[in-house]
């Protein structure tokens, strides 16, 4: 209707500078070699190195992560200041609670959307991993049980791991998907390329998971230490984000140089 008079979607492009053009060229000529895909991901993150380092300080990223932490604490029956699990905590209900927990009027709207999406991914994946039934629609009792599991140190680590991995994956796709369709001459080729990109993101994700595993022992200890008295302070959460993202970046760079 009205949308037919305004671009239905705004088609983005990567910058015209040489490092980004090289990435487009690499995507177009990617031949399935792991080394090449790794290079594309690393080069992309290298191109946005300063930005990626600053993400941990964004208030919306902080808010999304804090929400997951409060979810874990509330799931275990702990007290949080602003978070109460509803009687029937379905995955969709939790996702909608997240939506109102991440304000967009401060910080970067781009990072807010990415952080929300990554936290939503973490919620959906955690639910799917722990649900007794195949669908997303369990009973109120089953749903409560799923979030209860999230309240252990191990549960929190897993949710945190999912958040960091999905954030990284989405942040990479934020760039890589802009021109992928345009550089492939056939749909078949694009589909192949998509698979290759997915594999690459998969590799990066797994990489991120590996990194997060390094973080896990730290996270579990941190969670236990800081949740005894309730929800950690904002400063403590900021500290955790700095260390977790820092470890992630460090590991990605190590991968590049090895």
């Amino acid at each position, binding site marked *: 209707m009205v949308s037919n*008079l*305004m*671009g239905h*979607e705004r088609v983005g492009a990567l910058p015209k500078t040489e490092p980004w053009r090289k990435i487009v060229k690499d995507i177009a000529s990617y031949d399935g070699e792991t080394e090449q895909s790794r290079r594309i991901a690393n080069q992309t993150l290298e191109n946005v190195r300063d930005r990626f380092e600053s993400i941990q300080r964004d208030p919306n990223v902080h808010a999304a992560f804090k929400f997951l932490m409060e979810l874990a604490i509330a799931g275990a029956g702990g007290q949080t200041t602003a978070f109460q699990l509803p009687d029937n905590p379905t995955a969709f209900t939790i996702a909608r609670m997240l939506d109102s927990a991440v304000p967009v009027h401060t910080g970067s709207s781009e990072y807010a959307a990415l952080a929300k999406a990554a936290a939503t991914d973490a919620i959906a994946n955690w639910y799917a991993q722990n649900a007794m039934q195949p669908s997303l629609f369990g009973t109120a009792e089953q749903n409560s049980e799923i979030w209860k599991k999230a309240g252990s140190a191990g549960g929190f680590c897993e949710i945190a791991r999912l958040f960091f991995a999905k954030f990284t994956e989405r942040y990479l796709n934020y760039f890589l998907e802009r021109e992928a*369709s345009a550089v492939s001459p056939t749909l078949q080729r694009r589909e192949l390329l998509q698979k290759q990109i997915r594999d690459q993101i998969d590799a990066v994700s797994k990489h991120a998971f590996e990194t997060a595993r390094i973080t896990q022992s730290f996270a579990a200890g941190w969670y236990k230490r800081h949740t005894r008295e309730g929800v950690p302070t904002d400063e403590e959460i900021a500290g955790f984000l700095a260390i977790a993202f820092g470890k992630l970046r460090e590991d990605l760079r190590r991968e590049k140089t090895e």
Partner: protein
Amino acid sequence: MGKRVHHLLCNGARFEVPRNAKSLRLDYRPDEQPNVRIELPSFVEQLLHIPPRLLDLLEIAAYVYCADRWSYRGTKSAVEYQAWSRDFVFHIKVRDFKFWSQSQIRQKLNAALSFLSGDRKFEFEFQPNHKTPPTSLFDLQQVSVTGLSKTRIALFSGGLDSLAGVYEILSGTGDQVCLVSHRSSQPQVGRTQDQLVYSLQSRFPGRVQHYKFYCNLTAQRAAEETQRTRMFLYSAIATAIAATVGVNELTIFENGITSFNFPRRQDLLNARATRTTNPKAISLLQDLFAAITEADFHIATPFIWKTKADVVAALAKTSGSALVPSGVSCSRTFLSIGSASHCGECSQCIDRRFASYAAGIDELDDSVPYAVDFINSPLSNDEACTTLVDYVRQAHEFATWNPDHFATQLFGSISELVDYVGAVTEEEAYNRISQLCRRHGKQVMNAMARMRDKHDRLEQKIVHGSLLSIIAEREYLKLPISRLVETACNCLDHAIPLAFQTNAPKDEPDLNDKISAILNVDRGRFEREHPAVRFGLATAIPDHSAFEEDLVIETKYLRGSTTPSRASDGMAADLIKYPPSKHILFVVYDPARSVSDDEAFRRGFEEKGRCTVHIVR
């Protein structure tokens, strides 16, 4: 992250703008150095009198739209799109100051506009004592137009969805229709709307009225084309008319796929994939308009559970099908495209062509002058290529993803919708959304197959860069059901010989148990002996089925007294038992090589269509 705030001073409002802020004075009144065109007086004249609060609404919506067009959202090739989301502060003089100053009204404005546009905030600081002179002798509180209180009020762009919706009302009811359009500086759009309205008025005399509201920037060229707030202006115009004539509902005709508009790429965040008719946006607008009109105001979206192909097919079945070529769907009519009425490669043109082929009215739509015929000709730029390829990719995913994968992949987007689609439960909302997307996906796949059948001629070379070349490797032309059959056959070819290398199946039920296990090794897509299908007075129960895919599987185990001839009889009977919409896969297990000529055996059945015969040994 510090953002530069945009201050808009409207209707002569005063404010000392901070030094680091950007500001613009906006005014349309002739004596106030106008820099925007808002033809409010001529609009009021059509309705004789519009109450002050609704006049304020029209001005607010017009200024928001103009500010949206004035403020650039950054380049498409930025590293990150941090400039996309803007901070607006509007200072506007209004007539009904007390009403607009309420914090809840300002919050509702901010909520609707921020979601619709993807901007960070819309703050409003209202100032009192705004006045405009009466537009005519009849512009008095006690004067109003009569005879419109039972009129349906609908937004009208001139595209196929709004045309089909309006035609449905006119041909199916005796209701009067009031069409509402916003006019900017694009004469071609206006001409199209006028021609269509004239055609409707000729067919349905005395039942169609058309209200046009002119608004655009005048003193400078618009810096921003995305116009995400235009729906606010469009619906505000319709609300002003509705409330003035005593109607509590306006109707927006838009198909569900376009309304949901699930992003096709990760960078399409924050309304870069438009939320114009997203159910949440519609709900927020409805909430705002209900507060403004102080009535139980409703925005109806009757096409929300239809695809574009559904809408086009319904229109094609009416006498209004002749109007299809006149409807303009293109979003780039402002481009110089010669004598063409459509660019042919924006997402709306692409959607329209696929819908037309899916609905079987391609002959009619082919008469539309498209500047680029993407089926046979190369796309003109990378942006068009991205749009087309990602459109097809998404449709393909919708057609082929199983429900669980669909839920995981689109969980975030669906969670934003579930409260706003009129479903009783989350599960119902999810099921309806996924079924709609699946139908759209299948329709696009079918349309693509039809495009190939029609345009891919053996004697002609496929032009590089066209859709035909993009899909040249054919995998995507296979109907989803064909791919499912192929997957099932590959699976059985590999697993059955392994399963029975030592012990042959005892009987057909035993064979079917193993086949069921093999087919469901990946995910539970196939059901065993379910469902019962009634045909005539008989009830048929398939050995296996993927009923959502309209596929049933019948197994024949050739051994002993079950000869190829007897199996053939059974297969012939099966062909009659199932309704024509079902595709039947016959799995013939023939370990003793009873069938001497596989090809002849297969051909006899497959020539009848709607079945595949697969012999496994």
